[in-house]
Every structure is written in C-alpha cells, then in structure tokens.
C-alpha cells in the first residue's frame, strides 16, 4: 500500500470527515435468475428482488433515477422498471438480443447494441420509439458515449473494433482495431481518453478519441495465474480521471490502474467471474458483480480493500447505482 495514490488518501480523509454516506441503492441484473437484486448500500444487503424478462444483462438507471432500464436479451427488448413500485412499465423497441446500451448525457436517447444482427439501435426515450439504426461490426457489445454526447462508441466482439459514431449524423466516422473480443468502452469524464477492454486479448486499449488511435495498451499479469484466465470486461474510472478499475473475469480480480500513467497498481481479489462494476456517486465504494459466486463485492476505494460480499441473485452480471 506504499504506492497508494495521494489523491485517494485525501479523498479518504474528506469522506471520513463527512460522516455516514447517503443512502445509495444498487440495481444488479441476474443473468440466470431473470431478476434484478436491489441492494441497499448503507445496510450492504439485498432488500428487494424484482422479476424481469429472460436473461437480463445490461442495466442502467435513467438520469432521474425514476426508472431502471434492463436489457433482457432472450426477450429481445429493454425493459423499463419503475424504481418505486418495482413494476415493469414498458418494453422498449431495442431490436433483437440487446446486451449493453447507453443513454445520451441528457437522457433523451438510448443507444442499444444488438448482438445478433450487427446493429446499434437508436431509441427516443420520451416517445419510446426507435429512431433508426447504425450498421456496425459482428456482435456489437460495448457502448460508450463522449461526455458531450456527440460521439458514440460501439465495440464489436468478432470484428475486434471500436466504431466511432457521430450521434447527429448517425454515421461511423472511424474504426479502431483493438485486441480480441472487445467488450466494454468507457470515456474519461474529461473526454481525453477512451478505454476499451478486450476479453480474449486480455488487454485494455487506451484510445485517443480525437486522433482515433490506440496510444497505449494495458496488460495484466497475476502471479500464479495463466494469461488465458485474465479476461478484462467491465471498467470504471474515477471522476478526477486518476484511478481506473478493470474487472478481470475468471481471474477473480479487479485491477487498480493509475489512470494517468496506465500502470497497474494492485489486484484486488473479489468473487468468482467478475463481470461489471459501478462506483457510488461519492466514489467511496466500488461494487462488482461476480457471476459464478452469485454475489457483489464491495471495495472501499480509499483503502483499496474488499470489505464485504453481498449475496444477490443467480449469475449477477450488470450493476447501476442511484445518483442520490
């Protein structure tokens, strides 16, 4: 821990003085259970289970936290769940087999990756109708959007590319080749970098979003583990752009990355087959979904320690946390 980031330390002190955290709630999609587990982060326990459609994976709260959107791939729709009542109130015309999706910064438009027909579907959230689609590579999955909402990035798993899409023109403006099976795309909040994780390639590509070039690749090495077991998927970066977290799948670890130098600082042991993750808005905790152990690991960001495992439903996959 001697290499702990000074920023994090300062942050820890600030939080420590701030008293108890506000009551954030996490929503976890359970791929096999066909449910959403609602987790009270103060109590650190599952407080409610919501039944949804078949094979829920991608999950995100709307900007006002009033609804939780969940892609139910085997039902070919994105469901809208009322967070107060826990009822499914609408099914969005997402196109077939939706897996991951992302909202525009203003929350008006939803972009959905359709794995089975190589498209990204664009949905008007107010009217809940499809506005159009963009043809991308084979098996689109990861979805990232620039902070200004002008550029959408989709990754295609078999084509091995990050497709940069102009959201106004709805056209591809650049394609960047990355390592095998890219699964997740994430912009830094200042838009200076795009991170793309490659599950089979075992790397994270750092891409210059203006030049559309890979400027660096982060590799991972864990003593005693074969490189094949290191499969990066979900990622988070703190708002200050200084610390990144990468879920390494069957390696059962989350890599902590200095997001400025792109050096791996630490590996945190979490549950089995870690898929995705989300930071609480105060960035006090990072929660990861662990597919094979049916739980969520809670990482205290300041100390970089795994402090708790919370039991959720069967095969937890995606996670989203309320803003309040």
């Amino acid at each position, binding site marked *: 821990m001697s290499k702990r980031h000074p920023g994090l330390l300062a942050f820890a002190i600030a939080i420590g003085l701030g008293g108890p955290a506000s009551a954030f709630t996490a929503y976890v999609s359970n791929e096999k259970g066909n449910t959403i587990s609602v987790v009270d982060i103060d109590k650190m326990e599952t407080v409610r289970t919501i039944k949804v459609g078949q094979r829920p994976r991608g999950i995100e709260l709307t900007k006002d936290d009033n609804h939780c959107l969940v892609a139910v791939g085997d039902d070919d729709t994105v469901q809208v769940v009322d967070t107060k009542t826990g009822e499914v109130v609408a099914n969005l015309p997402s196109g077939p*087999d939706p897996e991951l999706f992302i909202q525009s910064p203003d929350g008006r438009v939803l972009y959905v990756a359709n*794995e*089975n027909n*190589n498209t990204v579907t664009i949905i008007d959230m107010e009217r809940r109708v499809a506005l159009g689609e963009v043809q991308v*590579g*084979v*098996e689109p999955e990861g979805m990232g959007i620039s902070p200004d909402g002008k550029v959408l990035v989709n990754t295609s*798993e*078999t*084509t*091995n*590319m990050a*497709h940069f899409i102009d959201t106004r023109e709805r056209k*591809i403006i650049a*394609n960047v*080749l990355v*390592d*095998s*099976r890219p699964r997740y795309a994430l912009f830094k909040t200042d838009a200076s970098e795009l991170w793309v994780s490659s*599950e*089979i*390639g*075992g790397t994270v590509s750092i891409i210059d979003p203006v030049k559309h070039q890979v400027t660096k690749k982060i590799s991972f090495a864990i003593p005693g583990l*074969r490189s*094949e*077991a290191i*499969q990066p998927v979900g990622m988070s970066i703190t708002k200050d752009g200084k610390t990144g977290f990468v879920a390494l799948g*069957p390696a059962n670890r989350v890599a902590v990355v200095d997001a400025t130098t792109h050096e791996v600082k630490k590996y945190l042991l979490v549950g089995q087959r870690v898929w995705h993750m989300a930071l609480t808005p105060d960035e006090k905790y990072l929660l990861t979904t662990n597919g094979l152990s049916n739980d969520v690991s809670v990482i205290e960001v300041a100390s970089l320690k795994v402090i708790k495992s919370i039991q959720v439903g069967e095969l937890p996959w995606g996670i989203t946390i309320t803003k309040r």
Partner: protein
Amino acid sequence: MIGLLEGVVHRLVNMDLELNKDWQSDRESEQNQRRTLVVNTVFIRLSALALTILLGLATAAQAQDPLDIKIGYLRRAQQQETISLVQMPPPDIGLAGAQMAIKDNNTTGRFLNQRYLLVDMRLKTGDDPAAAVRQLASQGVSLIVADLPADELLRAADAGKADRILFFNVAATDDRLRQKDCRGNIVHTAPSRAMLADGLAQYLVWKKWVRWFLVVGSHERDQLFAAALTRAATRFGAKIVHQREFKDTGGARRTDSGVAQIQQQMPVFTQEVPNYDVLVVADESEVFANNLPYRTWDPRPVVGSAGLVPTSWDASNDLWGGIQMQSRFTEQFKRLMTSLDMQAWTAVRMVGEAASRQNSADPKVLFDFLKGPQLALGAFKGQKLTVRDWDLQLRQPILLTDGRTIVSVSPQAGFLHQFSALDTLGYDRPETQCSLQ
C-alpha cells in the same frame, strides 16, 4: 487494376520518348521538322493529359480498390452414413462454416478495405487433389481450407509447396499429421484424435470412472481412435480392463425392424466382461457405437464415439457467447452447426484475424502472424486460441457432449501444465516427432 493502369502509363511515356527521338533525327528538313514538331506537341499534350488522367485514376483506384484475400475450399465429395438419422451430414457441411467466416471477415473488411472471397472446389471420385491445388493456384489462391482425408491432404500440401500455399486442415484428426507426417504448410484447426481422447479421459478420471471396457470397430480409423484412447488411459491413469472388437460385417445402417434385433444383439455382445466403470467405444465409421447406450449387459455409461462424445463444437454449445454463433449460423443456413463447420469457420477467421492485424494478403506474412505469439483468436471457447509452434496444431478446449447439452469442457481442473493447460491435450512439445519443413 492498378497494375494494368500503370502498364498503360508506361507505354504512353515510352511512346513519347520515341517521338522525341524521331524529332531529333529529322532536323535536316525544316518542313519535316515543323510537321513533326506539331505532331509531337500534340502527342506530348495528349499523352501528358492522358498521363494526368491515368495517374489520377490510379491514385483513386489505390484508395478504393480493396485488398482481395482469396481462400480456396477444397473438399472431397464423400457421404458418411450415420446410425442416427439426425446426425446425417448435410451437403454443405464444413463449407457453410467457411462461408459464415467469410461473411464475418467481410463485415470487418468493410471497415479496413479488405475483401474476402471463397473459391469452392469439390473433388469427385478419381480427381487428383494435387491437380486441384494447381488449378486453385492459377486462380490466385494462396490459402486453402482443406476437408480431405490424411493421404490426400498430404498430396495436396506437397503439391502446393512450390506456390507457397498455406493449408488449413479442418477435417483430418489423424495424429500422424501432427507427428511424423507433419508439414510446415499445414495448420490444423481440427483437433487430433489424441486431443479428443485426452479431453475425454481427463473427465473420466476426474469422475473416477477409471476401469474402461474398450470396444473397437474393425476399420482402420476406429483402431486409430482406439490407439489414442489407449494412450490417454496410460497418460491419465485409467485402466483398460477388457478390449473387444466389433466386426463390421456389412449391411445397412437402418432397416424397418432393425431395432428389435439390436436390442437382442448388444446385451449379448457386451456380456462376460470383468467389472468395469464405463464402456469406451471407438467407432468412427458409425457402424455400431450409437446402438450401445442403454443396451449394454451391465448398466454402464457409454462414451467415445457414442454417448458422451469429445468434440471441438456441438450445436448445443451455448457457453462463452456460443449462443450468438449458433443463432447466426442457424439463421444463415437453416440447420445446426457441426464441429466441421466450426473448424472451417475457425480456419477462415484465422486468416481474417491475421489479414486485419497485418493488413496483408501475403500468405507468408499471414502465416508468420498465425504461428506467432501475437495470435489471440476469439472462437467462442472461453479463452484465446493459439497455434503450437512444434506441429502447427491449434490449441483448443475439448467439449464433451451427449448431443443435447455440454456435459463438461476439458482440460479439467487439476490437470496442470507448465505452459498452457491446453497442452495437456494431445502431443506436447517434449513428445513431438514432428520436424516442420
């Protein structure tokens, strides 16, 4: 296209020089000189104009003409009879997988200005594979996906050596192709018999079903599979308590009332065997293995060529995003995806992966990439696939399926290896008899 244009440009430039020479030698006559000058000027202007246009076209063509990557698909028309009606091989078996990979490669190619083409060549009885290879080479094919029996594959590969053709063996499981008869221009996406047998054996040993009753068909390939199973038993600590041959005496695979007879025959055939845990059957010829399950004298599971079968792929595989592969395949071809389809898909995707990373269609460049450490092929197997540099065999997990679900995937946990757990399957580096040439 560019080559052709450049040819024309060169000819025009040469013509220009010739005219200039003529003009120099005609100085004596003023009239001639003036006439020549006029003609010459016109020509120079015309050719300069043409040159500009052509160069412009050539540049434009350079920007627009995609890089063509031609892949041959060489196969022998053969009809394998099967006991199970639902396992009858469809006419486009293998080829369909290659076609899907071509489509996948072209989706990527669209963004990289690459175009993939498949040239299907089907050998009829008596056709020489070497002649077919030469014919494909004359069509500009330097990468050939081969669905051929071992001997014909070797003949094809040796014929392709002169033209530096790279072959992908998608069908022949013969261990000798990875051992003594290996070739420096054949990459194997089909798993070897040893890999299949090892994958099965690891599971049986994990399950503690270590006393095997081995039943072997009377054809050569049945015996080759039995040899691989015997090797696997020794490697992983199983014991063959009894071995018996099932003679193929000819006859049809199915008859209207055959089932009644089989019900009588199979229990008798499996009688009087020392105590065993599992019946392991080697019957690649599809003569009897599928008649064994539920009909053995002792109530024992059947594995090998029937029951629990080791394979590279099965239509029931939905692990590691496999569902996406299955639904894309079924949508395009209106049938289920077989292991041969997967092995062909993998071969063509390997070419696509190499060509997209190297931005080249040169077989040597692609080959160097494929056998090197940079290859990290995603093929719905839960991990990156690479090629063994000692025999050019694609490392891959082996699925164990009963045809309805995936029962397990080998390598099994606990079978350790110094370099890659996948190298616990098949002939490892220290055991290799292959010297690549």
